[in-house]
């Protein structure tokens, strides 16, 4: 077993991982390695052949593979090493990795700094404890997306989609293009869980009905899905008796949420926030374990890939500085706190000294939708630090509040910054 040593090792080559590797190299790390379990770089972007990527970063509307390719090209140009078709089996708090690869066998890799960019996985049927039979034909939306867009197979002809997540809505349109009938999209919550633009472009434009406050009561069919029983739910998400309806279909797709994939982070001792299911991070995406950074959907589930890229760039810079011994240790720390109608804020902490040099984006999601103009306001020691107005706030769409260098004087001491999102 030949051991390898790199200044920065990035686990995962989705948008977060690609950006982190590029940024690490550009910020002075000499030897940078990306480890990817699939046979090519790009992660889930490769199966996202729809457009909508890059509007913030490139001011262009790109399909997923094109967006990925721009970064893959930079990875090659910057001579960043890649290990494809390789799975990380184990990590340690002192930043050693054990990987397996068909040609190399088991290898140990030592990292000066480590960036976790494993992304997230989809919630499954079992996690929402869907009753009924257990036939073929129940898939997560992402699995179906891989089949249709990468493998080239249709998993059914008549679909019901549970959950109004973005992948589910995008698949509704994609399956319609491929000649399938999407009967409807059911959402247990009283509001959309994905982006409004996806609702308009993927469901409304194709006359696919969305039913809010509805769920699947049971799955019917022994070998293959034959139908599902749908039902309306009340405010407590309990099924309303008498509202049941049998919908014949051969496939049920689930788009019921994403969970950051942090098994390796846990192994390495990284502290995990139970709300986001991702690491506790500072504004450089440095985790609780020195030298381990975390970027992208593995920290919290983003709505737009562009923000994932920005997070990757920040994490890669932090990792490069750490690997070179240049990451400043601050004497001050500001903790962020989710205030009124805010579910969580990332980063969890930041160094106010950094604010003198660069803006720090605070990214958050609201708890409840507000379909009216809102204030997003950051408060420290009872004083308003900054605020911005938004036309509405919806759980499916992330809110970003930029702390700009001009508010640095609000943080002379360590303290807590609370963000509230309230009706204007």
């Amino acid at each position, binding site marked *: 077993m030949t051991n390898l040593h790199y200044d920065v090792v990035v686990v995962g080559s989705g948008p977060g991982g690609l950006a982190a590797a590029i940024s690490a190299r550009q910020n002075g790390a000499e030897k940078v390695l990306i480890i990817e379990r699939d046979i090519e770089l790009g992660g889930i972007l490769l199966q996202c052949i729809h457009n909508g990527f890059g509007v913030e970063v490139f001011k262009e509307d790109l399909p997923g593979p094109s967006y990925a390719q721009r970064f893959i090209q930079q990875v090659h140009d910057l001579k960043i090493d890649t290990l494809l078709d390789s799975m990380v089996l184990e990590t340690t708090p002192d930043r050693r990795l054990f990987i397996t690869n068909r040609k190399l066998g088991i290898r140990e890799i030592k990292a000066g700094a480590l960036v976790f960019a494993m992304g997230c996985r989809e919630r499954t049927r079992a996690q929402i404890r869907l009753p009924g*039979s257990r036939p*073929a034909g129940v898939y*997560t939306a992402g699995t179906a997306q891989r089949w249709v867009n990468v493998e*080239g*197979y*249709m998993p059914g002809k008549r679909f019901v989609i549970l959950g109004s997540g973005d992948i589910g809505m995008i698949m509704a349109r994609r399956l319609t293009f491929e000649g399938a009938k999407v009967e409807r999209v059911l959402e247990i919550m009283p509001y959309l869980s994905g982006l409004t633009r996806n609702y308009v472009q993927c469901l409304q434009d194709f006359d696919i009905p969305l039913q809010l406050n509805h769920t699947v009561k*049971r799955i019917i069919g022994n070998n293959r899905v034959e139908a599902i029983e749908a039902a309306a739910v009340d405010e407590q998400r309990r099924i309303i008796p008498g509202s049941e309806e049998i919908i014949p279909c051969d496939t049920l797709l689930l788009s019921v949420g994403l969970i950051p994939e942090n098994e390796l982070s846990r192994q390495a001792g990284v502290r995990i926030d139970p709300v986001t299911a991702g690491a506790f991070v500072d504004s450089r995406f440095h985790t609780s374990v020195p030298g381990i950074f975390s970027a992208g959907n593995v920290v919290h589930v983003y709505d737009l890939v562009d923000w994932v890229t920005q997070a990757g760039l920040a994490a890669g810079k932090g990792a490069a500085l750490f690997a070179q011994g240049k990451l400043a240790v601050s004497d001050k720390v500001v903790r962020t706190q989710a205030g009124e109608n805010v579910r969580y804020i990332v980063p969890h902490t930041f160094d106010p000294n950094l604010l003198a040099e660069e803006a720090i984006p605070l990214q958050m999601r609201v708890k409840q939708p507000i379909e009216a103009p809102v204030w997003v306001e950051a408060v420290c020691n009872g004083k308003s630090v900054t605020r911005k107005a938004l036309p509405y706030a919806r759980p499916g769409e992330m809110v970003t509040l930029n702390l700009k260098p001009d508010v640095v004087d609000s943080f002379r001491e360590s303290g807590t910054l609370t963000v509230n999102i309230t009706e204007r």
Partner: protein
Amino acid sequence: MSETYDIIIIGGGVVGCMTARFLSRYKLSILLIEKEIDIGSVTSAANTALVHPGYDPVSGSLKAKMNVAAVPLWLNLSEELNFAYERCGDFVVAIGQEELPQLDELVERGKRNGVTGMSIVSGDEMRKREPLINPAVSGALFAETGAMCDPFGVTLAAAENAVMNGVTILRDTAFEDFIIQNKRIVGVKTNRGAFGCRWAINAAGLYSDVVMHKAGVRPEFKITPRKGEYLILDRADFELQSVYFPVPTEISKGIMATNSVHGNTILGPTAHDQDDKEDKTNSESGLQEVLEGGRKLIPCVDPRHVIAVFAGLRAAGNAPCETPGVDYGHDFIVEIPATIQGLVNLGGIESPGLSSSPAIALRVIDLLKDAGEKLVEKSDWNPIRPARPRFRHMTHAQRQAVIEKDERYGRVVCRCENVTEGEIVAEIHSPVPATTYDAIKRRTWLGTGRCQGGFDLPRVTHILARELGISETAVSKKGGDSTFLLRPTKQAEDDHD
């Protein structure tokens, strides 16, 4: 009749496969038929995965005798057949003072049944041994012979060893009727034609009543399928130290919380009678019942910990116990009926059927001997079924060695359970080949983790198609029309409605 065998075993569950394995020792031609696409895929694949010590069955019943007789066989059997078996002991946990007296009753019954190695553990001791246990625990019965196993793995290992020793297994082959001449069974009709035999062994589990009725045996015997629903919890959230039963009720051992050989906690089962022999659906109320029952023992169980749900059917019968003076109406049947020749009849093999299966197999052999069958041992019988490499359980050095021999062991296909392409390919080309996704899943434990196959499903479909030489659209979950994929993209639908 195309072929004639000495013995045809009807049913490839743990009882049929174990019987085939023990009989493969003798110079006999044996055929085992299984109606499903794979062996062990009904009751043997969906149960609590435990080998019981034998304190639970009614004293004097055949259940008690078979269970207690089987316990000493398991350790050696697990070494010969290389299946997962961990003798961790089990606990019956009394919550609150009022349940405490029932532990003494169980100990007394255990002693009558011949169970050894039982002791009473105090509430304090219990809280120390299992930090997650309900703090209201007042005491527990500990039985050191209780064990966890992989029940499908047991069934498969027995089947493979039987095949290694000359037994023919035909899956997707359903019993239809007996061929009877002069009150003697001379053959079996199936959906794949008729096969001749001198003996037929009814090991049809949930359908054992239907099969015996075709031979005119015990017309009053009836299987009433009893559904048990289960939850499996993520081992990342917590791991139990052992196996915990509540104090039993009249009809079942209650909803238990147990560790498993895979490290995941299993909660269940419920116990609800039904008529349908195929309905293994989960219900909202059943899953709620499991959660609440599980919380009685382990209060910190949370719905968020659940990574899988399943349901199984127990083949509960209504055969009276034949021991004089024992009033019990749900006993095992292990007999050669007097009314017809050439039939070994097994019925009502519900819990503790898995636990009893090796003893039932040996009793079948005794019955055949008693009936005058000359059983001659083969000189070359091989009792060892070798284990195949399991990447997940290896050290890095062992992994390196296996990858050097076959690079496909270096590619992980299931990220949660670390199952490699090499392991999947080996299962497709094993003595009882895996031909479906579920068959791969049960053999390798792939797709059972947090992502429940979301990652591996397209990859395994591809490997199955490649290795079996079929189209990916022909790859199925469990045979029949349970295919995953309909057609390639960029093709028009055949019919538009």
